């Protein structure tokens, strides 16, 4: 196949992957809502097919451009899909009971990929000289992996907050206060309404489990992110003559690193464990998303070639 054919194949496969993930997410969503095993099994099958297409899209893109397929935002988005979904499947093979959570993993991955394909798509092409280094393999791969894993951790933190709220509302009401008997009656009514609406969310794993999952995922992603920053610094030293220069991309990577470091400390600090820590993780997610989308496109810096 010619490079042009390969590039076209890659685009087709990428969209095929997106469609598969949407279908799979829907199936997992049904399993989550209706507790029908069949949906989940079908969801896994479709996810695996989508992953195959996704990997195919990256490989053909790489062959078409004769380099690693992560040279711009569109290509990153494809890789984000692969990493998130592979991570989910690996983890599913170890803990099958988390399958219905697939909807919460696949949806962000699909959004990232679709946004990449719709907004940041660039034709297959070579890299500018500044990117021609073996460090692009190491630094960018680590950055995509680290940020994908940390985003996943934040998704668990969001789910934790949801479930924690549900659990708090479902706790038996406190003994009525002398002056608040009427209010307590209202409160029971409210609690019942909440319980009705919260019925779907109450199917999430326990808040403790989700909190633990979020922590484990962060503990996995944080060293990778640290390594990505260090690898980036080594590359910057080789390419620009300084390992750190507060370029906006560097600044935001540092901000994300600081926030997730704060999260890890928060989980060991009385008064910050639980909800506050989860919020820190969500702030971390926001910084990662901002770093990827806004810093590449809006803010002028040395990393601006990532966009269009």
């Amino acid at each position, binding site marked *: 196949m010619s490079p042009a054919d390969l590039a076209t194949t890659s685009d087709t496969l990428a969209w095929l992957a997106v469609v598969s993930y949407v279908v799979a997410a829907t199936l997992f969503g049904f399993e989550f809502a209706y507790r029908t095993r069949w949906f989940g099994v079908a969801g896994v099958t479709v996810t695996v097919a989508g992953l195959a297409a996704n990997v195919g899209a990256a490989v053909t893109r790489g062959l078409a451009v004769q380099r690693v397929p992560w040279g711009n935002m569109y290509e990153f988005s494809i890789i984000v899909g692969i990493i998130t979904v592979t991570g989910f499947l690996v983890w599913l093979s170890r803990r099958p009971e988390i399958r219905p959570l697939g909807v919460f993993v696949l949806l962000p991955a699909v959004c990232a990929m679709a946004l990449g394909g719709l907004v940041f798509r660039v034709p297959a092409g070579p890299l500018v000289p500044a990117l021609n280094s073996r460090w692009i393999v190491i630094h960018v791969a680590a950055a995509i992996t680290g940020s994908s894993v940390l985003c996943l951790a934040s998704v668990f933190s969001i789910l934790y907050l949801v479930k924690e709220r549900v659990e708090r509302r479902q706790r038996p009401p406190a003994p009525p206060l002398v002056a608040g008997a009427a209010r307590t009656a209202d409160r029971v009514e409210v609690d019942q309404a909440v319980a009705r609406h919260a019925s779907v969310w109450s199917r999430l794993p326990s808040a403790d489990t989700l909190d633990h999952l979020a922590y484990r995922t962060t503990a996995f992603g944080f060293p990778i992110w640290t390594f990505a920053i260090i690898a980036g610094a080594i590359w910057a030293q080789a390419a620009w003559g300084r390992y750190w220069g507060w370029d*906006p991309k560097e600044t935001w990577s540092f901000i994300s690193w600081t926030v997730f470091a704060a999260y890890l400390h928060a989980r060991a600090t009385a008064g910050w464990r639980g909800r506050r820590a989860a919020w820190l993780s969500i702030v971390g997610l926001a910084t990662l998303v901002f770093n990827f989308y806004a810093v590449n496109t809006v803010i002028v810096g040395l990393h601006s070639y990532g966009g269009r």
Partner: protein
Amino acid sequence: MAVELRPPAARPDRPPRRPGLGDTLRQAWREYRSMRTALVLLVVLAAASILGSLFPQEGLSPQRVDQYFADHPALAPVLERLGLFDVFGSAWYMAIYLALLGALVACLVPRTRALVRVLGSRPPRGGDLARYRTQATFTTPAAPEDAMGAARRVLRRGRYRLAEHDGELAGEKGFLREAASLLFHVSLLVLLVGLAYGKGYGYRGQAAIVEGETWANARVGYDSFSPGRFFGAGDLAPFQLRLDDFSNSFYPNNTPREFASQLTALDLDGRELQAQRVAPNRPMTVEGVRIFQSDYGYVPVVRVTDAKGKELLAPQEVLTLRDPATEWSTGAVKVTNAKPQVGLELTMFTGLATAPDCPGGAPFCNDPRLIRPVLVVLAYQGDLQADRAQSVFTLDRSRLRPLGDRPVLLAPGQSRKLANGMTVSFTDLKQYSVLTLARDPGVPMVAVAAGLLLLGLVPSLYVTRRRVWVRAVPDGAGGARVELAGLALQGKPAFEAELARLAEQVARGSGGLKPGSPEDRGTLDAPERST
């Protein structure tokens, strides 16, 4: 952290002592070195860093700071006073990270001391094992001593540090977690020290060298130069650089492929030290100075003679500014000894093409490859105001009027007459290379610190601390009843299975379970002991 509960010392009939200044300070110090303070400072540091990316920074893009001043004349001076155009060098940013570092040191010292103390002491006794949440019990036909022997072997294999307290075996492991965490934090400190040291004693500058020329490493040779606070003028390494050749290439779609300088380093006497091809991502090191390829441009050589053939401007190398998007370059020639003075605006095309050959019906376009160089000259005459400071790349046209009504086009080697009879010759075309030179003596320190930091990070998150106690008592029928209890400081969800596995290994090691014994391995719902 140990929580001690003691009955209040003060007698009930006397009011408690009012806290003095010492108590307040001690309390403040304790608060300062707490994890909560570190946490808040981390968040504040992150928030402060955001400001540095929202406003243009003096160190990164001074032009954009100037632009900001032009766009917001009222606001900009206020922001400047607040240090928002140099956030990472501002006093308040420094205050935040110094506070964080102080808290870090204040926390690391007692933690290191505690770790040393714990490493020097024996694992503590467990006491009443029934109090622990995680337990396992079994009965074995072996004698109690044999069962204890098996437990010792199993725990030693599991890398527990062991101690015996009359009949009770205590094991402890996972100190690597704290040690690695300390390594991580100390490395972070060392990294910052290395960063500050490198910044203070290093420098960074840019220099442009024309093909074939030799450049001396002296302060005046730099177009931009930013020394560290402690960098002395005499600290520049004595060497020269000769640009033997510059080359650049493009992909078929006209995006840049590579650009590189063939450089030779010479000592001050002109002896060759080393030669290397320097390209993006391929720097060269001379006398501890790293030399990087940054940019490049074109240098048309222009000669001007008057109507009688007298030379007004000897062949002059004209440095031009290259626009990376179109790959055409602009520059200016100032003929100050002509009367009236003449200024030439130059535009250098690498591959000029006109209407039918250009995409999208553009009247002209440029091929970035150096295939058909053309110099377009627009001439002006009048007063160049050369006594005033001005850019070498442009003319101040306020007191100039056009000379002739159309531009003059020159290929290399060609000459053309201007409207006033003067002749402009495009005698040669060279390239220049922009190099970044930097010296950062902190790099080795930072690199080692970053490596150790990474080395410490993983165990500090994954190693888990455990304490296990084993006791074996005669079951009254020749066998032994073995009790295991444990305490996990981290990774609690996995610990139950871990202890069960240990119990199984001890049972296997001491001759299996006693046949017919009520094997009540599992957990009791006793409250976890707080330490």
